[in-house]
C-alpha cells in the first residue's frame, strides 16, 4: 500500500487526515514543519505528499514544494490551502507553485480520498 507524507503545522489536521488515510489502508508519515517534512521525504520516499501552505512558517509550503522540484523529486504533491481565494492564489497548479493539485480546507474525507486516489494512479 502506498506511503503518504502529511505535512501541516496543525496537529489536529494531521491526526484527522491520517486517520482518514489509514482507514483506507494507506501508510502515513507526518511532520509539523517544512524542515521536518523535507527530512521525512528524503528518508521515507513517500508515494504522495500532502503539504499545507503554512503561511506563517519562514520557509512555507510553497518554498518546500519548489525546493523538492528543484531537486528533481517528482513525487505528486497535494497542497492544502485555507485562504486561497482571499489572497488571490487562484493560479493553476503546476504554474507558479509546482504542485499537482490544490484542496481548500476544510476537506471532507471523501474528497481527500478521491484526490489521493487520483494522484496515486495518475501515472
Amino acid at each position, binding site marked *: 500500500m502506498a506511503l503518504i507524507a502529511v505535512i501541516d503545522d496543525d496537529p489536529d*489536521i494531521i491526526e*484527522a487526515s491520517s486517520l*482518514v488515510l489509514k*482507514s483506507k489502508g494507506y501508510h502515513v508519515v507526518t511532520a509539523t514543519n517544512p524542515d521536518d517534512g523535507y527530512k521525512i521525504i528524503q528518508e521515507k520516499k513517500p508515494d504522495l505528499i500532502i503539504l499545507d501552505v503554512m*503561511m*506563517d512558517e519562514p520557509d512555507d509550503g510553497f518554498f518546500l514544494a519548489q525546493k523538492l522540484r528543484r531537486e528533481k523529486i517528482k513525487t505528486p504533491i497535494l497542497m492544502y490551502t*485555507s485562504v486561497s481565494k482571499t489572497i488571490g492564489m487562484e493560479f493553476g497548479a503546476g504554474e507558479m507553485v509546482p504542485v499537482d493539485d490544490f484542496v481548500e480546507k*476544510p476537506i471532507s*474525507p471523501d474528497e481527500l480520498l478521491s484526490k489521493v486516489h487520483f494522484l496515486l494512479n495518475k501515472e
Partner: protein
Amino acid sequence: MIDKAKILIIDDEEGLRLGTKRLLELEDYFVDAAENGSEGIKLGTTNEYDLAFIDLKMPDYDGIEVLKKIKEARPNTVCYIATAYASYDTAVEATRIGAYGYIPKPFTPDELLYSVEKGMLQRNLLLESERLKLEREKNLLELASEKSRLKTILNSIAGGVLVVNRLGKIVYFNNAALKLADSDKFETGKPLPENFPEELKEIASEYLNADIFISGAKSLEIEIKPNQELVIQGIVSHVPEGENSFAGVVIVLRNITEAKKIEHIKNQFVSMVAHELKAPVSAVIGFLQLSMDENVKLPEEKKLEFMQRSTTRLKSLLDLVNDLLDISRMEINTKQKIIEPIDLKEILNSTLELFSLDIKNKNIVVEKRIDQNLSLINMDKSEISRVFTNLISNAVKYNHDNGKIVINISNKNNFIEILIKDSGIGLREEEREKIFTEFFRAKNKFTKSISGTGLGLSIVKRIVDSYNGKIRFESEYEKGTTFIIQFPIND
C-alpha cells in the same frame, strides 16, 4: 452740461486775450488767460483744461513749443493754434504734435464760439475713448492676472493635469503631470510622448475618437514604477464644447501609491485573519466528519478525545474573535474608557489570582516588589487589567517548569514603571522586531504546544499607547524576557 468747460487762452496781445476771455465768460465758460508762453505752459500742464487757444507767435516761446508741452502733459486737452500767418509747414507740424485745428486771427465771436463747440465735441470724444481705453486695459490686466493665477494654481496642485486637443496634440500640462507620468518631456503642440502609459493613451484615443460628448470619466490604475513604488490613477474625460461636442480630452493623474500600500496592508491583515479563523474551524470539521465516517469507525474513547480537542479549538477561536473585536474597538475608538484612580497593586493581585492554578502546576515562583507609597493612576480598569493579564499569561505560558516571574511596580519621578520578568524561553533575535505585530507567534520547540491568538502583545501595545505610555522589552533566547512599561502620572 455737468461742469462748466474750462478754457485756457494763451496770447501776448492783451486786447485780444481779455476780449476773448470776456466773450467766453459771457457764454458761461470758465476761462484762464496767460500772457506769455511760460505762464501758458505752467497753467496748461498743471490743470486739466478742456480747450486751449495758443497764440503761435509769442516773445518768449513759440506756440508750437507750448502746444507740445501741454499735449505731453494733458493729451486730452483740445488745442487750437491761433495765428495770422499759418504756413503749410507749421500747420503740418502743429497737427503732428496734436493741435486740433487753426483759428485764423483776427477771428469773429461766432468763429470763436463755433471753434469752441467743435472743440468740445472733440474733447468729449477724447475723454470717452480714454475711458474705454482704461476699461479695456483694466480688463486685459484682469484677464492676464486671472490666467497667471490659474496657471499658478494648476502648477501648485499635487495632481497632474494634461489637456489634449481633438487632434491628439498636447495643449496644456502642469508640473505634476510630468512627474507622475514619468515619461519624456511633454511639449505643447506635440502628441503624447512615446513612453506615456499605453493604457492611458488607449482611453484617451477612445475619447478622442468619440462622435459626441461623453459626460462620464474613465479611470484606471497604473503602476508607473515597479514594485508599487509609484502607482497612479489616471482619469480621462472630455473637455466640453458647445451643446454636444468636445474640444479635447483632459487627463488627471493622481498619486495613489500610499493608498495602495494601505490597501495592501489591509488585504494582508484580512487574509491573515481569515487564515487564523479558518484553521480551528477546519480542524473541528475534520474531527466531526471523522467521528461520523462509516468507513473509519472510530472507537468511542477516540470520539470523546476529538470532542475535547474540538472544544479546545473552539474556545481558542472564541478568544481570537474577542481579541479581534477588542482591536477593532480600539481602532475605531468606540470603546468607552471609564477613567478612575487605579491601585495597580490590587490589579496585579487579582490577575495573579487568575493564573494561580497554572502557576502552581508549573511550580513557578512569583516575586513581587511594589513601592510602599505607590501612586494611584488614572486609567480604565478593564484596560489595565488586560495589560497585566496578557503579560502575566505570557510569562506563565512561555516559562519553564520550576521557573520564576519577577514583578516590580515602582514610582519614578512622574511616571509609574511596571516590570515583568520571566525565566522563560525568550525570543530569537529575528523574532524580536515582530512581537507587537498581529498574529506573530514565536515558533520553536517550546511553543509548539502553547496556544495563543497572536494578538495579546499587539493589544497590550495599543492600550499602553493610548495612555501615552511606553513599552519596551529585553529578551535572551532560552533565558527569558522582561517587559518594562511606563505610564505617565497625570493629576
